[in-house]
């Protein structure tokens, strides 16, 4: 879309998230987009990033992306494998995780995440999978990177259910949780960060070719835009090649 290198909005999102991981960081990874981004980082600028999946696989270096959190690939390429109670207590709760990656069905303007229900809890319109590891990742990881596609039904003024806490229903803050919470929200349209004072998410960067009005239209609250709004660097040909190769290997492995 820019200067002849063509890429999709999802690829832009994954590449942006991968760039947020620094080499050597310890990262708690979920399945899907976060797993894609974390492994892209590992295969490009951050070869020493330590990936931990909640199945207890620590320091895993999968050759293909896992479909589930506990594919054999993750165990066989790990430095070590611990039990599930151990991964949540000794590793996550104790504060040994630098970055947690999360996604959600809904996010509100204060970075609270919903993966439980759409509608009322007792009579849901849509029953979502639930909490999984997310609440404790949100509270105990030093910082949280949120990844989700920018759509109005997902970016809501108030989530139907707070599964994982960002800055609280009224933006009151972290409520004593040890981690810093969601420091960045990466979407397929741009990048949002919480305002240091109000904790409200605001647009700090836009992806190339995306209009600010488009981001506003896909956000369910009055989206504030940073004065010094940036434009994301488009994916490099190396980033795209590594990502596409990883996804092709994965596709082939899972349909075998």
């Amino acid at each position, binding site marked *: 879309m820019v200067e002849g290198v063509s890429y999709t909005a999802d690829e832009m999102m994954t590449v942006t998230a991968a760039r947020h991981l620094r080499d050597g960081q310890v990262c708690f990874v979920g*399945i*899907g987009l976060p797993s894609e981004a974390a492994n892209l980082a590992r295969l490009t600028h951050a070869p020493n990033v330590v990936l931990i999946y*909640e*199945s*207890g*696989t620590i320091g895993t270096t999968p050759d293909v992306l*896992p*479909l*589930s*959190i*506990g*594919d*054999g690939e*993750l*165990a*066989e390429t790990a430095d*070590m*494998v*611990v*039990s*599930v*109670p151990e991964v*949540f*207590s000794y590793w*996550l*709760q104790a504060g040994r995780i630098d970055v947690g990656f999360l996604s959600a069905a809904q996010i509100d303007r204060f970075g609270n995440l919903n993966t*439980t229900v759409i509608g009322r*809890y007792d009579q*849901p*319109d*849509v*029953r*979502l*999978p*639930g*909490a*999984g*590891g*997310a*609440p*404790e990742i949100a*509270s*105990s990881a030093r910082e949280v990177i949120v990844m989700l596609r920018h759509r109005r039904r997902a970016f809501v003024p108030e989530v139907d*259910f*707070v*599964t*994982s*806490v960002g800055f*609280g229903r009224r933006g009151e803050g972290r*409520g*004593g*949780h*040890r981690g810093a919470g969601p420091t960045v929200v990466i979407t397929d349209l741009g990048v949002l960060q919480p305002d240091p004072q109000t904790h409200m998410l605001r647009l700090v960067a836009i992806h190339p070719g995306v209009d600010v009005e488009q981001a506003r239209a896909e956000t369910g609250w009055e989206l504030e835009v940073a004065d010094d709004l940036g434009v994301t660097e488009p994916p490099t040909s190396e980033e795209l090649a590594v990502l596409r190769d990883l996804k092709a290997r994965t596709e082939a*492995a*899972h*349909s*075998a």
Partner: protein
Amino acid sequence: MAEFTTLREAVADLVPDGVSVAMEGFTHLIPFAAGHEVIRQEKKDLTLIRMTPDVIYDQLIGMGCARKLVFSWGGNPGVGSLHRFRDAVENGYPRPLELEEHSHAGMATRYAAGASGLPFGILRGYKGSDLVQHTTVAQIECPFTGEEVAAVPALNPDVTIIHAQQADRSGNVGLWGITGVQREAALAATTVIVTVEEIVDELDRNGPNHVMLPHWTVTAIAPVPGGSHPSYSLGYSKRDNRFYTEWDRISRDPDLFRRWVEAYILDQEDFGGYLRMVQDSAALEEVLGG
């Protein structure tokens, strides 16, 4: 001392209607054969306990075996929804399903407390989450530092069922790879049933992190080779990711689901029959086509 038996007898003798059952295995070593046997024996009013209900509980819930579900994440990993679970929660079909839901860390803490013989466990968590209004959790103060922590009640299933790679002839259980929460779930339970890939003279001791349940903690052992399909048993089988993807289509429609269960579970003598059938990819289209 563990008793060697068949899966059919173990389920008939040790899983009466109305009990609480934990079939654990975190993606790896999910005891699918046992789930199928429970369906085949038409068990009712069970309280099903499992961190990730997965396809195994989608099958049990869809067949109306469960009254209540205790869990922390109810999706089809990497694929999407568990449609039979959703249908039960959203529409009460085929029967209403009571939920007791926690986070993974909460469930793991509850099992560990149960295995330790403690009344409750503690963790940092839940504060600010709406889960607090809908589940069994209380904030308590540390008597030494004053820090507020979450207390969750111990989880002690009547029956825990797991699948492992091996048992030796004394009934010691060898299990390795992703070990999940199986040791805690087993030690927290009154009755423990273990299905195994094989019974061996001596357990392999070269795995990366062998977990062993000693024979005196196990009630019954039944050999079921391949008994974790479509999950897997490290060293014996690979996860059938294609099956998990196909399950989305099978479970979405209650009639297709019913047809699938009849052909693959109810019409089969045992899990061996199911395994032969899943190897025949043409059979699926035949069954779903009606």
